[in-house]
């Protein structure tokens, strides 16, 4: 796989002149690079994002935070353009009506309480009823009990939630979160995941960076994988996995007669390996689509009933490992 996979909606046919207006992506990067002297932090990255939750994945130092800072207008691209809802992100404060940002750095004004911090954000956003907006945001992030304590006394997870409350007060359509689950306990993580899923279901565009694959796998509809400043892949990770034709797919199969099924499968050109280990049938194939079509046909022809067909190396972890190691 050499080219990143674009999300399906972004490659939709453009609308005709008298049809509905063309869709403006919530976030769009066009050949964006950012370098510091001789060091290239982000290298020729292009993608577009619409509503849904997208996970930004990459090893430490891959360029995740740089990308998020570019998208939030806090860094000038050295080349290319970053657009937020059709507006250039760099040096245009008006984009912040659409954006909510949760930066990775924990810094929150230590002398403000959680509620005061949310209220400050609401007032600076110019929302109609800042007090009500601040209260709602505090409730949304489950910080009511600690709302009147100075943020200096907060734990790391509480500060993360305070920052999220500050980013939500104006109900942005685009939410950028840099390692948002850092410091949160399992209950808070689940709460945050539910919240982000609900926001995405309501039509918001949510992009969050993480180096914890399990979080991304559980929450994200699609992923962006960055490695050494380059976009290694974009889209649904299962689709990305299917494009890795140089890496065999393996399936665990359970049936009424695994031995006979193995013999039938090994004759199929899509299958290049079948073995019985500890009473379990493991099948290797280089062609995901051909195999998944052939398997039920071959089983039916042999009079065998399939009980279970499960891919064993289609996890996000295996996709990620492949992308960052090749």
């Amino acid at each position, binding site marked *: 796989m050499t080219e990143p996979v674009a999300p399906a909606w972004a490659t939709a046919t453009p609308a005709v002149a008298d049809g509905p207006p063309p869709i403006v992506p919530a976030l769009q990067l066009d050949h964006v690079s950012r370098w510091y002297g001789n060091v290239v*932090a982000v290298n020729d990255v292009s993608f577009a994002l619409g509503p849904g939750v997208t996970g930004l994945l*990459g090893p*430490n*130092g*891959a*360029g*995740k*935070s*740089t990308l*998020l*800072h570019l998208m*939030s*207008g*806090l*860094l*000038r691209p050295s080349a290319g353009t970053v657009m937020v809802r059709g507006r250039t992100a760099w*040096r245009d*404060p*008006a*984009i*912040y*009506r659409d*954006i909510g*940002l949760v*930066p*990775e*750095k924990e*810094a*929150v*004004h230590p*002398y*403000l309480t959680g509620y005061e*911090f949310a209220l*400050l*954000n609401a*007032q*600076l*956003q*110019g929302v109609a009823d800042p007090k009500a907006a601040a209260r709602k945001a505090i409730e949304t992030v489950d910080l009511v009990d600690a709302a009147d304590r100075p943020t200096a006394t907060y734990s790391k997870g509480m500060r993360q939630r305070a920052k999220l409350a*500050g980013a939500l007060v104006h109900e942005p359509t685009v939410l950028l979160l*840099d390692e948002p689950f850092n410091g949160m306990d399992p209950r808070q993580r689940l709460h945050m995941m539910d919240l982000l899923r609900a926001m995405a279901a309501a039509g918001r565009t949510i992009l969050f960076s993480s180096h914890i694959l399990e979080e991304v796998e559980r929450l994200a509809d699609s992923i962006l994988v960055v490695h050494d400043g380059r976009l290694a892949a974009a889209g649904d990770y299962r689709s990305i996995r299917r494009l890795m034709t140089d890496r065999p797919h393996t399936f665990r199969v359970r049936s009424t007669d695994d031995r006979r099924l193995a013999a039938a499968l090994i004759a199929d050109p899509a299958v290049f390996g079948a073995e019985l280990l500890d009473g379990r049938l493991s099948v290797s194939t280089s062609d995901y689509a051909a195999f998944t079509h052939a398997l039920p046909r071959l089983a039916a022809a042999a009079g065998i009933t399939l009980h279970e067909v499960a891919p064993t190396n289609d996890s996000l972890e295996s996709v990620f490992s492949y992308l960052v190691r090749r």
Partner: protein
Amino acid sequence: MSAFGPLVRVTLRGLMGRRRLLLMVLLVALPVALALLVRLAGGGRNDASPILDNLIVRTVLPLVALVLGTAALGSEIDDGTIVHLLVKPIARHWIIIATAVVAAGLTALLVVPSVVLTGLLVSGTGSTSLHTTFAFAVAVLLGGTAYTTAFLALSTVTSRALVIGLVYTLIWEGVLSGLLEGTKFLSIRQATLGVAAALGGARPGLQPLEPAISFVILIVVTAGALLIATRQLARFEVRGGD
């Protein structure tokens, strides 16, 4: 501009940290305490201008303005909380103006009463004395604004604003502007003394700058600093991250 009030309040809360405030109060109380001692020792004099210049214009005013001017925005830049102000739909000049108003206002609030009390304690309430004290109070108000905005702008340019500001105050203004005539035009202190002299607070033995030049210097420094700070903030880029 509905965000101006919240910007002022959050800057004020940030600057009113207990330790910093205590240090500033002690600093501005020092000339008053010395004047009180002079008064109690019977050493009152007719002209307070040398004391107001040496103790306040030369020392207390630039130090207070330096601490408040560099901390107003500089501390937010250093600890990263500036990001929360920047990711808002607010024109950058409003952030700078609000910050400058608070820093300059606090500087005036601390230093002007110090001038008035010191002047009254040293030279009493005679009409000439009151005139001199009033002249220095106004000059310190204008000079403090110029100092504060200059140091505020410096904090948007470099993370070493405090050190550079200290070098400017102690070396440039304290030593060079007294030795080299031409450097007077680049000295906020000299312009402050020029304003004081224009209002009737001339210090004997000193050749102050022309009143018009002094006012122009303070206005140019203040306006220029606000412009530079706004430009810097508009081009501000976050540091760190991967």
